[in-house]
C-alpha cells in the first residue's frame, strides 16, 4: 500500500538503512501556501487508487533497476491536506550518496509524470481548479516507459496497425 488517507508519519516512514548503506536521501513534498502567485489554503489529492498503487510499484521497481543497490520506499497521501502537510515522501538508501540522490530524484520525477494522482488547489474562497500540467508525450501515445519495460506484456506483443 503506497497510498494513504492518513497524515504521513515521517519518523515511522524512515526505515533503518541496511548495514552496507552509507547514504540516505529523503524527499518530502509539502503543501505550500501559494502557487504561481495565487494563495492556496489547502490541496485536495485524488487518485485512481488501484492504478496508482501499481504505477508507484512500477516507479519503485524501475528506479531500483536504474540504480542497482538502492532501496526505495514511497508513500503518497490522498484527500484534503493543509498547508505544511506532507503529500509525498520518498526514501532511498544506498551504499553511496551519488546513487541515493540520483535515485530519489528520479523517483519523484517519474511519480509526477506517470502516477495517476491529481490535485486541486483550494483558494481562500473555497473554489479551486485541478492542476493540469502537460502530459508527457509518451504517455499520450499510451506508453509508459515504466510499465512498457517491465509490466506490460500486452503492449509489447502488439504492433501498431
Amino acid at each position, binding site marked *: 500500500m503506497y497510498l494513504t488517507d492518513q497524515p504521513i508519519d515521517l519518523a515511522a516512514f524512515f526505515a533503518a538503512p541496511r548495514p552496507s548503506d552509507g547514504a540516505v536521501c529523503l524527499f518530502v513534498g509539502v503543501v505550500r501556501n501559494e502557487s504561481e502567485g495565487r494563495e492556496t489554503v489547502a490541496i485536495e489529492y*485524488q487518485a485512481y487508487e488501484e492504478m*496508482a498503487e501499481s504505477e508507484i510499484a512500477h516507479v519503485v521497481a524501475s528506479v531500483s533497476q536504474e540504480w542497482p543497490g538502492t532501496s526505495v520506499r514511497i508513500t503518497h497521501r490522498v484527500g484534503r491536506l493543509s498547508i505544511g502537510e506532507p503529500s509525498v515522501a520518498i526514501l532511498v538508501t544506498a551504499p553511496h550518496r551519488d546513487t541515493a540522490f540520483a535515485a530519489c530524484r528520479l523517483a519523484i520525477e517519474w511519480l509526477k509524470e506517470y*502516477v*495517476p*494522482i491529481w490535485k486541486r488547489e483550494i483558494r481562500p474562497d473555497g473554489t479551486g481548479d*485541478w492542476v493540469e500540467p502537460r*502530459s508527457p508525450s509518451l504517455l499520450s501515445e*499510451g506508453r509508459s516507459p515504466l510499465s512498457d519495460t517491465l509490466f506490460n506484456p*500486452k503492449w509489447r506483443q502488439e504492433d501498431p496497425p
Partner: protein
Amino acid sequence: MRVRVLYFASFRDAAGRAEEDREVPPGTRILDLWEILSREIPAFSRFREMPPAAVNRLYQPSYVPLEDGDEVAYLPPVAGG
C-alpha cells in the same frame, strides 16, 4: 459488449459522475470510445488529441481494442507529488 468507464479529477467534474458501464460494439478501440464520450461531454473536446488512457490499470495506446469487461479510464494530466 460492456465496459466500465472511470472518470477522475476534471473529467469527473465534467462528466458529473465517477464511473459508468457502457455498451459498445465488438472491435471498439480505446480511441473510438473517447470519440463517443467527447460528443457527449463537451469539456472533453478541449483536448485536440486523446489524453493518456488506461485499460485495466495499465497505460495503453489508442489503437488497442477493448474487450468485454474491461475497465477503461481516460486520464487528465496527472499532478501527483
